[in-house]
């Protein structure tokens, strides 16, 4: 009974995902497509729960749908005037048919490959579980991210820093060092101000909660950082706070601190535990938590600043 219900749920969910994705890609108006993408992200969150991947579900809810959706919604609104001109550039019907055929065959090939995957599936779950006690953690995903494959995570934080540098590098020279985003006056919308005052305390609590349980339960720094970033963006949008100028030393130190601490712990490991990014026996958990604590503000700042965009003005509020 329960299994049948679950399968029913899965089928319904899968159909919804497919319908919303198709509509999002095919609809005429880009702003509508961006709204569709937000809905699509919400549905994917449910899919990740069904795939027994709660850590990913949290990340998808926070980043995939939440912050990416914001980015796309904002860009679609800015670019509305260019929609009509782009329409004319669409390839002809025959061309689209050929492309559709090509994409369908790619899909078919991938689907075939997935269905042909061996059974029982090869897995690292037992090894990840067996090694878990030595990390002192209870969440195997966190152990993968910060111990077994810590190099990926370290470099990924560098990716975020590089993306931020890339976005900043797009600033016109005359406003270099200035504030990102447009100037927003405070008290423009009373409701918005109210929301931006009310939600962040909740957000900070939730972020701390997610961060804290991340060592042993689904959650962790990425998810917590995204929620913090979202709260900061909210306050910026409401005009409560201004995005800081990118030349501020403290801002740069916050962005850099996380990866820097990560690297430092890595080198500490090569001195004390025999390998770069290894943790000395018994000190794994505190060191991992130290890394995560340093990463949390760095990631939050980087994510929020990525959404805010390149420096655009020198005048502050």
């Amino acid at each position, binding site marked *: 009974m329960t299994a049948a219900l679950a399968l029913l749920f899965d089928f319904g969910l899968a159909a919804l995902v497919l319908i919303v994705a198709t509509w999002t890609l095919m609809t005429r108006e880009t702003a509508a497509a961006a709204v569709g993408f937000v809905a699509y992200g919400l549905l994917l969150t449910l899919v990740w729960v069904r795939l027994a991947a709660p850590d990913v579900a949290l990340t998808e809810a926070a980043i995939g749908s939440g912050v990416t959706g914001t980015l796309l919604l904002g860009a679609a609104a800015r670019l509305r005037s260019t929609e009509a001109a782009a329409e004319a550039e669409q390839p002809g019907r025959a061309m689209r048919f050929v492309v559709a055929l090509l994409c369908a065959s790619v899909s078919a090939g991938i689907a075939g490959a997935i269905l042909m995957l061996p059974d029982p599936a090869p897995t690292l779950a037992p090894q990840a579980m067996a090694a878990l006690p030595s990390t002192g953690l209870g969440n195997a995903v966190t152990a993968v991210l910060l111990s077994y494959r810590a190099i990926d995570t370290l470099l990924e934080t560098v990716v975020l820093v590089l993306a931020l540098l890339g976005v900043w590098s797009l600033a016109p020279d005359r406003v270099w060092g200035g504030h990102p985003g447009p100037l927003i006056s405070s008290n423009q*919308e009373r*409701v*918005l101000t*109210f*929301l931006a005052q*009310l*939600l962040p305390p*909740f957000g900070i*609590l*939730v972020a701390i909660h997610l961060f804290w349980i991340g060592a042993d339960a689904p959650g962790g720094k990425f998810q917590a950082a995204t929620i913090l970033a979202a709260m900061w963006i909210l306050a910026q949008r409401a005009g409560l706070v201004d995005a800081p100028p990118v030349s501020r030393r403290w801002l740069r130190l916050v962005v850099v601190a996380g990866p820097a601490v990560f690297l430092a712990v890595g080198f500490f490991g090569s001195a004390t535990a025999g390998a770069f990014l290894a943790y000395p026996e018994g000190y794994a958990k505190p060191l991992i938590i130290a890394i995560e604590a340093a990463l949390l503000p760095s990631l939050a700042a980087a994510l929020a600043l990525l959404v805010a965009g390149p420096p655009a003005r020198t005048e502050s509020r």
Partner: protein
Amino acid sequence: MTLALDILTVVAVSAGAFFFLAGTVGLLRFPDSLSRLHALTKADNLGLGLIVLGLLPRAGGVLGALKLIAVWAIAQFASAAVTQLLARAARTAEPPA
């Protein structure tokens, strides 16, 4: 006692589900954006509220219950504000005929 709590769960969750249904029907059937928004608010407030109420006895501990209440509270405040914002956006999108 457990039976009473179970009954509470069943009743509240069913009522909550009903309000979700009502909200959805309203969202689909109502003629203009503002009345649709009204329907949405019903689902948001009452639907989620009743489900949270129904699940409270099964939350398993104070922290669990607190989390449930937090979900409801956040959704509540957010939806109140968002509804106003969306209403304003809807009014500017389609001015009254």
